[in-house]
């Protein structure tokens, strides 16, 4: 039922002396939405960001273990990090449009990977903006700076931008926590719509959101993997008492 696409094996991440992720071993299923849940500061974002090696950017970071994407360990020496990241789209918690126009934001990814044909780019930009549910609102003003959009629109733009490089996976770090309820709902709907084409992994600290969207759940606490499994099972019959305590709101 759940075919693994990403296989995390014995992943340990240190920020200097701090042991942030402790020996994580779990598989992420293909073409499903996986939610990483747990209280704040428990390593959820680190886990997410290690999947596209954005953790490389942090000063003093040390990583051991393997992350196999389609059978290849992304932490191997010979791997081209930019190719990995092309496969993994990332949407950050706070919308982070690049300092350019709406069109250029969306086209940025394909352009840096070598796409130069204007017509192709136009078509791609339109498709992605449609895919993010933003096309109708911006089609008349593609050349305007992205900073002029509202927060919710910016986040959808970030989604479009991520889709433009034709990733296989979508990583979302609390994608709606900075947005108003209506924009949040919009993003959630889009994620559900595109789920059939992408493997989606998202981090959230809002359990209700996880219940709404997730097919598979990973529960992290203080850097350790406490429990993981199909959403139904974890939410209704968690096997670990800490999971139960978290779900029932004993701590958060």
């Amino acid at each position: 039922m759940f075919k693994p696409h990403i296989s995390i094996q014995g992943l340990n991440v240190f920020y200097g002396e701090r042991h942030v992720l402790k020996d994580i071993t779990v598989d992420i299923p293909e073409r499903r939405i996986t939610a990483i849940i747990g209280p704040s500061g428990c390593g959820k974002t680190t886990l997410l960001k290690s999947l596209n090696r954005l953790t490389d950017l942090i000063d003093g970071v040390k990583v051991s273990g393997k992350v196999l994407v389609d059978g290849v360990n992304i932490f191997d020496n010979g791997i081209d990090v930019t190719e990995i990241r092309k496969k993994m789209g990332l949407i950050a918690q706070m919308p982070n449009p690049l300092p350019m126009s709406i069109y250029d934001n969306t086209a940025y990814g394909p352009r840096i990977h070598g796409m130069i044909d204007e017509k192709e780019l136009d078509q791609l930009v339109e498709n992605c903006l449609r895919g993010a549910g933003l096309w109708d609102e911006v089609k008349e003003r593609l050349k305007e700076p992205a900073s002029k959009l509202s927060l919710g629109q910016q986040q959808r733009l970030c989604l479009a931008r991520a889709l433009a490089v034709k990733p296989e996976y979508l990583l979302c770090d609390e994608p709606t926590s900075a947005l108003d309820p209506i924009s949040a709902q919009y993003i959630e709907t889009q994620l559900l719509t595109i789920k059939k084409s992408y493997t989606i992994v998202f981090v959230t600290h809002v359990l209700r959101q996880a219940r709404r969207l997730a097919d598979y759940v990973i529960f992290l606490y203080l850097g350790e993997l406490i429990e993981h499994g199909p959403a139904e099972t974890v939410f209704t019959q968690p096997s670990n008492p800490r999971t139960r305590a978290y779900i029932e709101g004993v701590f958060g």
Partner: protein
Amino acid sequence: MNKRKLEEAFFKGLMLLSTSIVVGSLLAVFAVVILNGAPALSLSMLTQTPKGGYYLGKEGGILNAIIGSVYLAIGATALAFLLSLPIALYLNEYARKSRFASLTRLSLDVLWGIPSIVYGAFAFIIMLYLGARASLLWGIITVSLFVFPIMTRAIDEVMKMSPFKLREASYALGSTRLETALKVVTRQALPGMLTAVLLAFGRGIGDAASVLLTAGYTDSVPHSLFDPVATLPLAVFFQLGTPIPEVQQRAYASGVILLVLVLLLSIASRLSTRKFMKYVIK
């Protein structure tokens, strides 16, 4: 894909080259000056004033310039400090974010950018008007004018960083603004102020254009504020301009002395910052 990597490698190479040029030029300046000046350096250079015939190659040294520069730099730094501290305090304790404060900071920035020759020219005008002659006093006044924007800016930057809760605590205890300023902010800013003072001292001791028109030049050590005074930068400049090789060599040696002085000041300011940092609350 390869194209990307190539482009990056190319520019990275250029970047390393450029940075090496910058660092290399620093080393080149030090090396050339020291290598040329060290041979001519002798104890008499440091301990004697020019005797008769010094400028023709005979005995003597540049003690006049060394002491002269030190007197001048100390005087100018002290005078500038008397002006800078109140201004920096006023900007941070009284005027704060007002328009007046922004205007003042802008003026200070402009003053900072004005070349020292203009200060020299201005001082010269005042001296003519007052009928004064070139002297240590006017050298001090000119250099302190030149140096006080730098010092004020530096002290201001340090005070700006002082966390508000410190001041809040002082006010909550019922202090006046003056007391907070003097007892709390100043103490907190002490290492930064020391650095600012050393920075200004270094600028003051090395500047030639401002003293050229106002401090005069002499072979003796000044006995009063109204005597003309010799300065190290001018010692280098004048000695370099003679056709006599021995004197030119002495110019190089004077250059070394000045350079070493500036280097020591720079190191001192860095060390002092580090040493006093332990008293500072972040």
